[in-house]
């Protein structure tokens, strides 16, 4: 408790030392300071890409170590069979699938910020969408690993994708799992494209600031000869907008399809019509809370206080709160529809979630997912960074539990009472894999931050410019009124 206060004090101290001039401190209402020089923007962002400090390597090492645990687990599992993960009949799935949904869900944040808010002209997204977009890409890559790890015959994974085959064999187009594979692949490739295209003007800046070395070559190659000509900007805008439009239905469909894995099945607790909406809401929810976490970390590490401002954080938090309430509502809808269905099997699954052996986790999910976000409704917490940090982690814990609570109880308590099994607890291989996925994600993300600008320089400039313009306009208007 005391430590918290200390930390909180430290934060306050840092806020006081922030580069924002005192007279603009009221700024709290402003998303960004209009007076930031464009050169400073470049400078600040490029600085974040400089040779990392020692701590970076230490964290990277630990991330790699965590990832290695997963590699070890996978080698062990590959050698000996899926049984080592302590799955069984009826627990055919386990943490792999629930963590897969978790990461897929997390990927929705980027699309929400970069595409949806882009189309809605919510320009406060501009300083934070880049890392969110990276979050999307990397969490998808993490999720993809779980699909692979989950397969009993990983070496034959290509059987479930349509590929040219001299025997004319096709996968089963009725299977939601196949839709899944295709949707995720499409989403991943589109996300990478979106991330990359959106980065071209920034990559050109990076290129222009360097004189030699591999980075120069890399950026030269990646920036595709960007010179900032009028024609390039026009083409860029159109392309970006097009992909954004393309990505939104894709994002919604991806998680709807993940939901379909369950909703299209016939199992009690899964066969629920509201699942697609529920899953999409859950996805946005966990994505937003992940953004808050990363927002806080990046802001602190890269000293991005100028760009990742508290008002932007506040907006993100409010968005998160809204989604949390939608999620809570959809959760209630699910319970209600199960309850009124008069389907005993589905009811049984629900009952055993609430009071059965899964109760601690289920109530944990309710607490983290529906009770904890209530703090976000209070204004004073909306910019309280230590609180937000803890809350955002709790929200994601809640969302992870939610996925587990969707997958596991139906297996342990399905239609057939003879095979009910309440003692199933995932084995260390499964936990190791879950643990490793965070290491893998951290590795990717940390690598990204040092190679690519994690704040979009040109969009921040744009934002500053717009604000300036707006300011000028209002000033003019004011003057005119005089």
């Amino acid at each position, binding site marked *: 408790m005391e430590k918290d206060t200390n930390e909180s004090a430290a934060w306050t101290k840092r806020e006081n030392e922030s580069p924002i001039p005192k007279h603009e401190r009221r700024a709290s209402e402003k998303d960004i300071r209009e007076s930031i020089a464009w050169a400073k923007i470049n400078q600040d962002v490029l600085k974040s890409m400089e040779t990392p400090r020692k701590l970076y390597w230490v964290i990277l090492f630990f991330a790699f170590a965590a990832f290695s645990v997963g590699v070890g687990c996978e080698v062990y599992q590959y050698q000996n069979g899926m049984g080592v993960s302590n799955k069984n009949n009826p627990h055919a799935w386990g943490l792999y699938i629930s963590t897969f949904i978790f990461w897929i869900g997390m990927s929705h944040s980027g699309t929400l910020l970069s595409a949806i808010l882009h189309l809605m002209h919510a320009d406060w997204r501009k300083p934070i969408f880049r890392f969110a977009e990276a979050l999307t890409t990397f969490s998808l890559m993490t999720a993809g690993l779980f699909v692979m790890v989950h397969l009993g015959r990983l070496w034959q994974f290509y059987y479930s994708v349509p590929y040219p085959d001299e025997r004319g064999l096709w996968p089963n187009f009725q299977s939601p799992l196949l839709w899944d594979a295709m949707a995720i692949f499409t989403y991943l490739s589109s996300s990478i494209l979106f991330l990359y295209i959106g980065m071209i003007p920034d990559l050109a800046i990076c290129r222009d600031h360097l004189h030699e070395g591999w980075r120069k070559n890399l950026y030269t190659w990646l920036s595709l000869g960007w010179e900032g000509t009028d024609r390039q900007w026009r083409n860029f805008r159109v392309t970006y907008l097009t992909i954004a439009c393309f990505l939104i239905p894709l994002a919604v469909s991806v998680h709807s399809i993940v939901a379909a894995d369950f909703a299209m099945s016939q199992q009690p607790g899964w066969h629920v019509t509201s699942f697609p909406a529920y899953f999409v809401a859950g996805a946005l929810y966990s994505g937003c809370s992940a953004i808050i976490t990363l927002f806080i970390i990046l802001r602190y590490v890269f000293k991005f206080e100028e760009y990742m401002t508290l008002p932007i954080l506040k907006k993100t938090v409010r968005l998160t709160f809204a989604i949390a309430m939608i999620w809570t509502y959809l959760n209630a809808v699910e319970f209600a529809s199960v309850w009124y269905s008069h389907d005993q099997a589905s009811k049984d699954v629900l009952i055993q979630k609430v009071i059965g052996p899964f109760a601690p986790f289920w109530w944990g999910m309710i607490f983290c997912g529906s009770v904890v976000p209530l703090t976000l409704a209070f204004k004073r917490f909306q910019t309280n960074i230590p609180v937000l940090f803890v809350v955002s982690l709790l929200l994601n814990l809640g969302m992870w539990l939610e996925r587990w609570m969707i997958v596991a109880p139906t297996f342990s308590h399905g239609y*057939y*009472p003879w095979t009910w099994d309440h*003692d199933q607890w995932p084995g260390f291989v499964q936990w190791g894999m879950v643990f490793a996925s965070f290491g893998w994600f951290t590795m990717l993300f940390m690598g990204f931050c040092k190679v690519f600008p994690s704040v979009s320089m040109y969009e921040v400039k744009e934002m500053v410019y717009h604000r300036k313009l707006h300011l000028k306009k209002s000033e003019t208007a004011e003057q005119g009124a005089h």
Partner: protein
Amino acid sequence: MIDSGLDRRDFLKVLGWGGAAVALSGCGNTSVEDGKETVVSYVEAADYVIPGIGVYYNSTCAQCDAGCSINGRVREGRVLKLEGNPASAINRGRTCGLGQAGVQHHYNPDRVREPLLRHGDKNEVITWDKAYALIAEKLSGAKGDEVAFLSGGVSGHLKVLLGNYLDSIGSKNHFVYEALAPAVVRAANKKAYGVEMPRYNINKAKVVLSFGADFLGAWVSPVHFSQQYAQFRKGVDGQRGVLIQVESKMTLTGANADRWIPVRPGTEGILALGIINALGTASGDIAAAVKGYDRARVSKETGVPPGQIDKIAALLKLRSPSLVLAGSAAEGYAHGSQNAAAINLLNQVLGNVGKTVEASTSVPFPQMAPAKGNTVALKSLNDGLAAGKYKVLFCYAANPVFTAPGAMKFKDHLAKAGFKVAFAHYLDETALQADLVLPLDSALEDWGTQVPEYMTEGAQINIQQPLMEKLHANTRGMGDILLALVKQRRAEEYKSFDDYYAYLRGAMLLNKNALGGSGADDDTFWNETLTKGIVKLAGSAGTLSGKASAAGLTLPVPSAADVQYPLQLIPGVTASLRDGRHANQPWLQESPDPLTTIVWDSWVEIHPKKAAELHITEGDIVEVTSRSGSIRAQAYLFPGIHPDAISVPLGRGHEALGRYAKGYGANPFQILDAVFDQETGELAMHETRVKVSKTGQRVVVVKDEGAAGGKQMGRKIAVLVTTDEVDLSKEA
């Protein structure tokens, strides 16, 4: 071919190994014996091997003594699966799970492969010549009555040869010991019906009242009775047969009963007399004998509600004929003979004798009839051993070190025998105590004849013949060994028989006419016999000679509660493990017990109410202590047991017998008290009193049943209806 870089040798290797995958086994051309697998092409295959085509041979199942005829599927020289032989009147093409596992007896990796001379815990591999010479040497130093032969229930020509051998030694000490044989019931039947094992017509009965006879599980001839049971359930004219089972621990048969009646352990006879009383049809001395058994007293002593007794009596009166069976649960007490007599009396009172209880037939060769015996024989052997009477002891098809009640201290006494020879398939507990272990052919590689104790529709002699070549070069058939041994003494008489096959063939041909082969030439007769696997004989129908009498019938009043050992131990006999000789067959270990669904381990069945009293929950490791010892096993809460009793299944808890048996479970034989039936002197298996205490350890019970237990949770999965709701007569 050469252009593609695949040279001829590689090509042949590929083809050869491709074939080897199927040809690898012992059809004579491959040398599995010395551990090498030679690649042999089909060009050299034996005549009877047609690649890809299964051939079928008839033989006899040796997994128990019921004598089911089997039909083995053989492909590429390997026996793959055993089916029932439809021509047999006993099993009519069916087998049980135990029978199915017969191939795992044959292919068991833990079989003894060489004659072993044992020095303490060490084995020395010796040759057969040396082994025979050793036996001859030891026998020469012993007088006839210093030699003993312990065997299981042997029959057929093997029994004859064994008799001849013992005769040649001058020994009369043939001890026949089958741990689970219904010895008391046999004696009671002999008294009541004049035969030890009459023919029961379950299929003709409208009501079967069984006092602990697990005829669907492990009693006498379960596959045969199961078929009768199926007919009994279909019933005559749509009148479905009713099964009432009276026992203290639910058996498989009890689980199939229309009414299962948990009776206080040991009071089965009292209930039988109570039913006779309630029937009110008895007269003479019977009426006098049952007079005291009014429903109030019977109900008090047995724990069966008075209404239930009346209901049973009413049903028995209404539906005739019925059949009353006395099974192992009734005979397992110090007053077991009296129990069985009372139950048989009920059959007589109901007039079932001659209708559903008929005279059995026997083969016209009494010397081939199965040798029977139980603990009386073992006890006498044990006493002899304790007195140091025997210089040479042979042991075949019995594992007394495992199955003898702990109180008999058989293992200690066995050590006093001078020279112990075990004929064994595996190094079981008894073989480990032997000085010389002689490896036997499996039942699927050996020749033999078998005469079942329980026969229907005439008599039959079952043929046992090899279904494939020997798996191991140095194992021998029991017949061959006995022949070699008997030749040591009487070389002249047996010189014309090269091997047991020749002996068997000769013996069968000698009686060709009596065996229904009159007119046929020798080869035709012999080949037909082998093809059929059964020699069916008219058999001599015996007559039932007993008469209904209650003379000498006295049933003890149930004893007061024993404070120190408050519970009755009921050793459970399961259909697949029985006395434990097949515990090394992994299919049986992993086949869930039908009632508890537990696999690979022993358990202590305890009624939930009793368990609550003792604060025992499922998975507690409990210690079961009797006056003779204690064992530990996991507790399983089981509603089908009398609260004053617990049950531990027999068959597990081996300290030897190979990788699939050793170390799994506990052996309740070890803690059985030496209490014997007062009349016959057989072991009273259910008479051991125990106490149960928690050890504090807990395990997860490994079973098939899920967390819902045996509940269907409102789902319509296994549906039960009562007879008034269905019309069976319309069914196809």
